């Protein structure tokens, strides 16, 4: 599929998993904002990509209409981690400084800590993940969101990568 061309450049290893990913997830949302995309997904693509910022540790944060941030992990990260079987997430009310460890995701073979993209307070945690940790793989930008937090210091967003910069970052570390 056309949108797969984007990720094809990321790594030859990932080519073979693309069909599975693109069946359920919006296709490469952070790239296809302005280009024609498969009709059904274009509206959600725009909304999703509107304010996605990325950390170098592969978390993303999206600023919502209410001013809070939704946090998750990127497609690159979920693909590398494999089938998520357990999500260790923080309690609501937890105060986090930027880069604080806020939880962990585990697959059958790997465990990975999660680091807060910004300073703020946890206001909601994705309750669906307790029974369906696989949502992180199937829908890492949408249904597999991890937590929502307040944004204490919006200026911190400027230090994060936008979609294009993150895409370049992945390419640079892939070799």
């Amino acid at each position, binding site marked *: 599929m056309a949108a797969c061309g984007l990720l094809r450049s990321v790594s030859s*290893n990932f*080519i*073979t*998993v693309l069909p*599975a990913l693109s069946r359920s997830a919006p296709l490469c949302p952070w790239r296809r904002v302005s280009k024609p995309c498969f009709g059904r997904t274009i509206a959600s693509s725009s909304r999703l990509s509107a304010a996605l910022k990325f950390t*170098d*540790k*592969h*978390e993303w944060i999206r600023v919502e209409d209410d001013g809070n941030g939704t946090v998750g*992990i990127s497609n690159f*990260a979920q693909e*590398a*981690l*494999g*089938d998520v*079987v*357990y999500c*260790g997430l923080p309690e609501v009310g937890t105060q986090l400084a930027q880069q604080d460890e806020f939880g*962990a*995701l*585990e*697959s*059958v*073979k*790997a*465990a*990975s*800590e*999660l*680091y807060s993209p910004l300073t703020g307070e946890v206001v909601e945690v994705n309750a669906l993940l307790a029974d369906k940790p696989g949502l992180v*793989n199937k829908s890492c930008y949408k249904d597999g969101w991890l937590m929502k937090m307040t944004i204490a210091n919006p200026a911190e967003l400027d230090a994060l990568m936008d979609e294009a910069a993150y895409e370049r970052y992945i390419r640079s*570390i892939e070799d």
Partner: protein
Amino acid sequence: MMWARLMVGVGGPGLGLRASRDGLLRVSGAGCPGKRQQQRQASSAEAALKKTPLFDFHREHGGKMVGFAGWSMPVQYKDSHIVSHMHTREHCSIFDVSHMLQTKVHGRDRVKFMESLVVADIAELKDNQGSLSLFTNEKGGIMDDLIVTKTDQGYLYVVSNAGCADKDSAHMKARLAECKAAGFDVDLEFLDEALIALQGPSMSQVLQQGVKEDLSKLTFMTSALATVFGIPGCRVTRCGYTGEDGVEISVPQHRVVELTEKLLQNREVKLAGLGARDSLRLEAGLCLYGNDIDETTTPVEATLVWTIGKRRRQNKDFPGADIIVPQIKAKTARKRVGLVSTGPPVRQHTPILSSEGKVIGEVTSGCPSPCLKKNVAMGYVDAAFAKNGTAIQVEVRKKACPATVSKMPFVPTNYFSG
């Protein structure tokens, strides 16, 4: 997130994800060597990984290659780990295990020779019967685990771990020199055949289409020479590392791709990698050398007393027998047990605590069980806590989580007894 955490080993403190400076996912590998050596090995391992005859084939089929025990091996293919694992339990999967060491021991004194190194009663094996056994050292520790088969072709056929290949072959060669000097008629031949495992409930239906021998006569732990899908000179042994009915097929190198392709033509069959191999063997309660057993564990501590032949216990004629045999009666201070928990997965080095919070042991390998949807693990605990059903705790990320000592296998096995 940073991949700072090591995964469960796939054969030693092996397959690991570790973070580099920029948070990059990096895969390193090692076999039996300890942790320090693993780090040192990682960079040279990446530089000079050995390739099995299926290397290009794996890549063509979407194999994600990682370094393991000095070899470039597929950890998974296009299917996710869990899909691959469940396919093996419900259909059958092919695993490339050509990295393992295959050895033939020839000569009139081959049984005496081999028995001087391992704990098995080899003389009592029936023709073409094999057994799991252990190389032990003078301190009573386990040097490697292996399968030795007494073929009716005038040789013993031995398969041992890839991560211990250098150690095992040096060990056998040293003993060979001693035995030859003492006038034994014995010789070693290290094979360069490829080795593939076909594991799962539909294995025999798949394989029967390619062999004329009646597979219902080839029971668990027996071996036979056969022409397989038109390829002569194959050795088929009904054994494996998944807990399912399965075989390992030793096949001439230059025809292993052909054999694998033939098997894959059957819709029942899929390729599987080291990732699924590890979660399958753990569910089956099978030890991983380097994690669950090593040179610091005796067969008694490891609850592998059954591998020590009755005659061998009486004669005490294997390395470390003077330490090991008394332990059978006297019991040991610690014991290997299985444990089950829910909540955060339990991995190697996870501390095991009593319900009061006292440290009583450590996990040696563990993973979330795709079949049980719980966490399964093996570890060593103080003997007082080793009884099945004992309530214990595991400490994951500084929090104590409840766990229970459990019998193994965690998932029932399906070995074919005929």
